[in-house]
């Protein structure tokens, strides 16, 4: 599973990254969380409100920071 956090490194992006890591830990998933900070790359996903969560190249959440429980649900669907 490939997990990406899109965002330019603002407070919300860091919160999202932390929540994703917590969700992975709690589910026992050993996935690498990649940070995408390049604006061109972010825009290529069609994302215009950051932060965004991308799982296996599919945009799952954008424009807000989901709670750990919600991220767990998203990751379990995979």
């Amino acid at each position, binding site marked *: 599973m490939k997990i990406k956090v899109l965002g330019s490194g*603002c407070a919300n992006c860091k919160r999202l990254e932390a929540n994703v890591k917590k969700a992975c830990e709690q589910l026992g998933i050993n996935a690498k969380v990649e940070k995408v900070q390049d604006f061109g790359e972010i825009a290529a996903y069609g994302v215009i409100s950051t932060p965004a969560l991308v799982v296996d190249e599919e*945009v799952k959440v954008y424009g807000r920071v989901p709670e750990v429980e919600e991220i767990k649900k998203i990751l379990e669907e995979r």
Partner: protein
Amino acid sequence: MLQEFADWLTYSIFGLARESQLGAAANFFIYDSIKVTLLLAIIVFFVGIVRTFITPEKVRKWLGGRSEGAGNVLAALLGVPTPFCSCSAVPLFIGFVEAGVPLGITFSFLIASPLINEVAATMLFAMFGWEIAALYIASGLVIAIAAGMVIGRLGLESEVEDFVYKIKAKKMAENKMGWKQRAGFGLSESKSITLKVLPYLLLGIAIGGLIHGYAPADFLASIAGKNNPLAVPIAVLVGIPLYSNAAGMVPIVGVLISKGMATGTALAFMMSVIGLSLPEMIILRKVLKPKLLAAFALVLFISFTLTGYLFNAVLG
């Protein structure tokens, strides 16, 4: 009821004397902080629900291919409730340009979004009354519309970084939300924004109270009063690179006015602080070439200055 609570806290719990200066100041501080915080929590909740309907993704769709004028008005209006932080300005800009939103209309949105925000409007309303709050919103809209139209007419499309035009964005599924989720979003916005601005708000009110008590009332009147025509452009020039939370700005504006700064000058200063900042310009440089970035800052400088003069003339 709120006043009674503040009285009870100041005089019974903290045991301050009713007639003392400290007692009166503490009472005022407690009453004001609670009033503004409650009002903020409620208004941010409702704005949060509105935000679930007016997302940047939808705004982009509504603005695509709009003509000058009507498009700028719509963009400025939609910019008011739309959330904005300087870190999402660039993806937003790219997304709008990529979807065929004209440059001038994109700028109307980019200007309105940070300039007119619910936190500043609520606090102006709580501390100065509805007239000043309405004046702030109305002038913010006029600035966003006019500045966007001017930038649109400058024909600076070639001054956008080239990579922006080359991006081919993927289509993305839209978030779907029910009423329960919308209310949940409103609650979480209310909680997180209120908590985030609370320290600034308390600090602003506290600094305001201190200066209010210790600086003479006409402290600023001679240098920033109505008789110094240069005060407005200087205040705006100082404010543009500065960045501050709107919640901390409003109490400070209150102090500036009470110490003799002309109301229009103080409001123009506040708008230039929250409307544009150096960090935002640095981040926008990634998509705007220097010429367009300079035009953007210059148009805003002129707009804020004119607004300051206008307010000073109108508010008398």
